């Protein structure tokens, strides 16, 4: 099967040349189409940077990133933007919706930016449980509803891959579960690839494959186990003293 995301010896450093801060220290991995990958690690382990580099939101310092078969490290900004618009969906922890616009306007935003024709709006909204709210301003919605708008926006354009950065971070467990169910459904029903960064073992348990980061390096890349094992593995990699004992 084709790989939707491929990273080859990707590094990313911040800060000055004299005192560089290494966020990613040479990561190689491949994500085949139709898989749900969870990326975990302690704060500062580089998981958000990994997501941003893989999604073409940021450029690596060295190494190569292939996204849907295109080498994004060699694409110019305009072409990269179009690639993101046409083939990639995003879900962020802080929703990142335009709060003064309506649900419909937010979901159709990529299309208005020139993106591909989306699936019928009613169908997409029904899928995320927001039927009848198309005309509402996003500012009036609850957190869970906002995140579902963001998922509708990400899935409406039939993307090849959805990148989700702590999508349940700001939600209660029940609402968070709805969101994860939607992402899982996208993978199972439409063959979308999902790359999700999370620190919640219960959220990660919805994935097919678990990648653990520590200090900008991959320390584990395994089929996703049950939540308790995920929590244990996470504690082990983050060097939690409870586990060390």
């Amino acid at each position, binding site marked *: 099967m084709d790989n939707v995301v491929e990273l080859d010896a990707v590094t990313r450093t911040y800060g000055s040349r004299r005192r560089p801060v290494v966020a990613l220290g040479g990561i190689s991995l491949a994500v085949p189409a139709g898989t749900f990958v969870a990326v975990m690690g302690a704060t500062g382990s580089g998981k958000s940077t990994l997501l*941003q580099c893989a999604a073409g*939101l*940021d*450029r690596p310092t060295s190494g190569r990133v292939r996204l849907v078969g295109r080498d994004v490290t060699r694409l110019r*900004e*305009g072409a990269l*933007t*179009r690639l*993101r*618009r*046409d083939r990639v969906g*995003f879900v*962020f922890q*802080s*929703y*990142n919706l*335009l*709060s*003064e*616009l309506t649900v419909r*306007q937010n979901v159709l*935003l*990529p299309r*208005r*930016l*020139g*993106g591909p024709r989306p699936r019928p709006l009613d169908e997409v909204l029904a899928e995320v449980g927001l039927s009848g709210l198309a005309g509402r301003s996003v*500012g009036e919605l609850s957190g869970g509803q906002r995140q579902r708008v963001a998922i509708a*926006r990400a899935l409406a354009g039939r993307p090849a891959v959805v990148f989700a950065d702590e999508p349940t971070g700001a939600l209660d467990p029940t609402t968070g579960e709805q969101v994860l169910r939607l992402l899982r459904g996208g993978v199972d029903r439409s063959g979308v690839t999902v790359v999700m960064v999370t620190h919640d073992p219960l959220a990660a348990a919805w994935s097919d494959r678990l990648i653990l980061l520590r200090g900008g390096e991959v320390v584990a890349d395994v089929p996703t186990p049950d939540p308790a094992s995920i929590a244990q593995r996470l504690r082990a990699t983050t060097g939690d003293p409870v586990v060390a004992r």
Partner: protein
Amino acid sequence: MSAGLTRQALRKQPWSFAGPFVTQCLAAALVSGALGASSSMSGARLDPSARQVLTESSIPEMATLFVVVSVYLTALIVGLTMTSSIARQARDIALVRALGATPGRVRRAVATQAAVVAVPASVLGVPLGALLAHAWLAGLTGHQVIPPGVTFHPSAAALPAATGITVGASLVGALIAALRPARVRPAAALTETAVPRRRIGLVRTAIGLVLMAGGVALSIRIAGGDPAKAGESSFFTMLAMCVGAGFLGPVLLRLAAPLTRLFGGTGALAADNLAVRAKALSGALVPLVLAIAFAMVKVVTHTTSVHVRGVAEPAARVWTEYSGTVVYVAFAAVAAVNTLVTVLLARRRELAVTRLVGASRMRALAVVVCEALLVTVTALAVSTVVAMVTMLPMLHGMLGTWTPYLPTGQLAGGLAVVIGLVLVGTVVPALVAMRRPAVESLAVDS
């Protein structure tokens, strides 16, 4: 899409566009008024003797100078206010960039916003300018400074010129502000906009220093040159230094920040805020410094001349001298207040957070007042320097003195007006922003 981003911006922050709208309306009025007054004089049907009286009054020259001054002044201030409005959308711009808006598309959306504000503002401003010019000419004939035959005739060039300058400056200002968020990687923009950049740019500081030095050099040249041309050149001295002050704003505000420590904990909070917001507040510094320096130069030149010569100037002459300046000072002051209001309303969220972690409404307000005072002190210090550099060589050339003179009463009055302006631009919007419970303010913006 341009429409979507424009609509979002206009709805989310109506105030941040109301400010530029008012400023641009006044800018168009200023340009068209100056043009109208100038063309009314040159086009007036006068008999030869009246024409000679008019020419000898040197008022037509003054009107030409007004045209020049208003064009530069409005272009600068319109561009500046628009820049600060667009800069506030950095986060939304980063978001649409992540979702697939190319840099070019973002620039188009931003240009649309600039035009949407500027075109109606100019159309509204031009008739206002006609009223201004009419009133000015009526005042001049009333004081018998110019012959009664000079009446106001609208200039055909006023509308296109005023619109062109206002729309042009608005576009340039907006595009400059969008340059960075449109071009940077969306990842950087999404994280960076959450925290304003604290670092002070070396280039920015260098440009500021060069402009300041240029102002001083120009002033020295004027002192040695033809006094008749001093008026126009001294305006450019002032302009260069005021823009320089804007570039140096972050440095200046941060130098002044330790002063607030005198006010204890509240002051320390204010100082921290200023360090973060120094850049945004610098936008208000330019018009504020321009307004104070303009007024100071005009008033102190007058009072010093009366003081040295020991005779009062004729009322008609005083009226003529002050009338033009009043308009510019008012324009710059309005722009300054607008910018302050824009900056403050952008902080609704931050004010709400301050209150949530335990500050009472009074305490939050005290922090705002403290910051306002610091901005005032900085503006006063900078404008005094600018005014002195502009004025001293002129005073020396005209009156042979190096010591300016200003009666205590007028000094106190001026200070009160400046402090009042800054407080209006900060405390009133802060009160409006804090009217609702803190939790509500937070819910709306997330």
